[in-house]
């Protein structure tokens, strides 16, 4: 068996061909991914920094999912409260009808209708959950806002059943006397006040979580931007970039609006 022998000239040509094809592969990868640094071998520092950025963006994405589930849970509870409020208002209509008649039989019928409404309220309160958390049924909701879990929002639950926070009793004495009807009326208006304040606290919680959600989304965008633009290797170049940005920003609308915002702030007093 004889080996194929390559002359030095051929060998060097082959080497150059191999190197060219390596370069082509590299360029193709860059074109395909849009990133200058694709592996730790290209540029270790940039690669790991960029990877850090992407990992963080992913962590935040996971948080974002948790936040939107949280928002859905709060919204489900809010829908529940709206529906329960409507039922309580229908119950109020029954009470005022009963007040307008002296006929004991009519009153008894109305009282029976009133009693039939109450279990429906309890059912609505039981069905107001999302993803296993029912804010109207005693399950508190905890939403984590950052990766290490140091910042959380806890939405306290309520118990919107007729036997619970709403405290509505079944009609007494078939509403035979005016006192019985008045008692039901008082309970209903108290229940409505409770529902209204619960809805208010839910909506304030909702807006807190929504603000954080928007902020996290913008943060993810910034991080991804950073990872993508991480083609700059040395601090010299970054310094020069910052100087250029400094000049560019002086003329930008952002700087103008920043100054305008400062003028509307308490900072305006500090001149």
């Amino acid at each position, binding site marked *: 068996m004889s080996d194929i022998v390559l002359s030095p000239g051929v060998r060097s040509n082959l080497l150059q061909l191999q190197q060219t094809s390596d370069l082509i592969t590299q360029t193709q990868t860059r074109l395909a991914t849009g990133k200058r640094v694709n592996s730790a071998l290209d540029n270790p520092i940039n690669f790991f920094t960029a990877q850090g950025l992407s990992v963080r963006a992913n962590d935040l994405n996971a948080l974002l999912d948790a936040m939107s589930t949280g928002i859905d849970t709060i919204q489900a509870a809010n829908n529940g409260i709206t529906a329960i409020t409507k039922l309580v208002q229908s119950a109020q209509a029954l009470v005022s009808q009963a007040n307008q008649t002296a006929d004991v039989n009519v009153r008894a019928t109305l009282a029976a209708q009133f009693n039939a409404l109450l279990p429906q309220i309890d059912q609505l309160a039981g069905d107001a959950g999302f993803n296993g958390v029912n804010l109207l049924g005693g399950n508190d909701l905890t939403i984590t806002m950052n990766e290490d879990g140091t910042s959380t929002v806890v939405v306290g639950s309520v118990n919107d059943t007729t036997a619970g926070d709403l405290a509505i009793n079944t009609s007494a004495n078939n509403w035979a006397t005016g006192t019985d009807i008045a008692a039901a009326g008082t309970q209903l208006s108290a229940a409505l006040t409770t529902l209204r304040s619960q809805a208010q606290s839910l909506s304030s919680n909702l807006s807190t979580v929504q603000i954080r959600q928007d902020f996290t989304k913008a943060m993810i965008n*910034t991080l991804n931007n950073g990872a993508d633009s991480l083609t700059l290797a040395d601090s010299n170049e970054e310094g020069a*970039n910052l100087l250029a940005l400094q000049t560019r920003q002086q003329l930008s609308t952002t700087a103008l609006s920043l100054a305008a915002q400062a003028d509307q702030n308490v900072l305006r007093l*500090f001149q």
Partner: protein
Amino acid sequence: MGLKVELKGGERFILGDCLVTNGKQRTRLLIEGNAPILREKDIMTAAQADTPAKRVYLAVQLMYTARDPRLHHETYFILMRDLVQAAPSAWSHIVAVSNHILAGEMYKALKSAKALIAYEKELIDHATRGTSLRRGRQTDRKSA
């Protein structure tokens, strides 16, 4: 547990929506509650904010002292995006600031923004020092 503030004569600070100016004597104050407090040395005015990182600091400061911080989020993110594109290596500082804002710890966010300003100064100093070293060779170059 309140915050103890010691003021020199004539020193000013921001407390909530007000600017408090000390009289002639040194004063010690104990402040309790949740209002934003900013000492004179920590305050950046719009005129002083002339670099990208200082503008970020100003935006965080506006969020801290505003009743509705949401108004300043958009400006903040435009500034952040510019900065991270110009100097991606500053991202760890940027993340620290954003994380504090997200957690609602605005005072800590300001502290991190201060670290960002220091880092920016380091980078810019490095770049300007580099040009002055290179200036000797500029004679044989055409101006752009």
